[in-house]
């Protein structure tokens, strides 16, 4: 699965996107966040407070408990501040 990062999340992780072969037991967005947080320091920092993050699955907004089955792209970003 492709994982993309935006704004502060992108800067903290230091990358625009990653491509992961996720283990079979990673089923929801929350599972992905937990999985990434266990990788290294930048991911841990960037994803430390999932309540303050927003997610999209294949360009549609989604909650943390949404299933990632048949999803090709997860986007992770902070609450928006446009306008």
């Amino acid at each position, binding site marked *: 699965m492709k994982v993309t990062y*935006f*704004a*502060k999340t*992108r*800067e903290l992780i230091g990358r625009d996107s990653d491509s992961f072969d996720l283990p079979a037991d990673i089923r929801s967005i929350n599972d992905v966040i937990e999985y990434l947080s266990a990788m290294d320091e930048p991911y841990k920092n960037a994803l430390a407070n999932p309540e303050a993050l*927003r997610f*999209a699955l294949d*360009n549609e907004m989604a909650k943390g408990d949404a299933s990632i089955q048949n999803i090709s792209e997860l*986007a992770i*970003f*902070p*609450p*928006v*501040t*446009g*306008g």
Partner: protein
Amino acid sequence: MMRHIAVQITPFDAGQELRKFEGNRLGAVASFSGIVRSENDIIALSIEHHPIMTYMALEKLCTLAEQRYKLLGVTIIHRYGTLKLGEPIIFVAAASAHRKEAMAAIIAIMDRLKTDVPLWKKEIFADGTSRWIEQKQSDVDRSSAW
């Protein structure tokens, strides 16, 4: 129904956008321009967007506003990239038969845009440092009223 949506790095001409609504017997055209202002001693704003979702979210906002406020035309232009003080960030215009609908549409679009469209602003300071703007609770409250 005229609909114009753009997410662009290049400047736009709000006047030219407004003129597109003239001569169309629309009755009422309301508009809003957001401009980079000198808050917190910034020298510029850096604006990031989600290249696909931003456009989709603006389309959805337009559709909602068109239906609710009987719009005859709507324009939303949002810039991204680095914008200096005084540069326009956003332009929203709505045309309707009556002023009440056109104005209400602009207010609703701006309120919803603050929470529903994946755009992020970063403040750039003279010493080269920068800081991401945090979403305001007041914006969340105002948006949820629609």
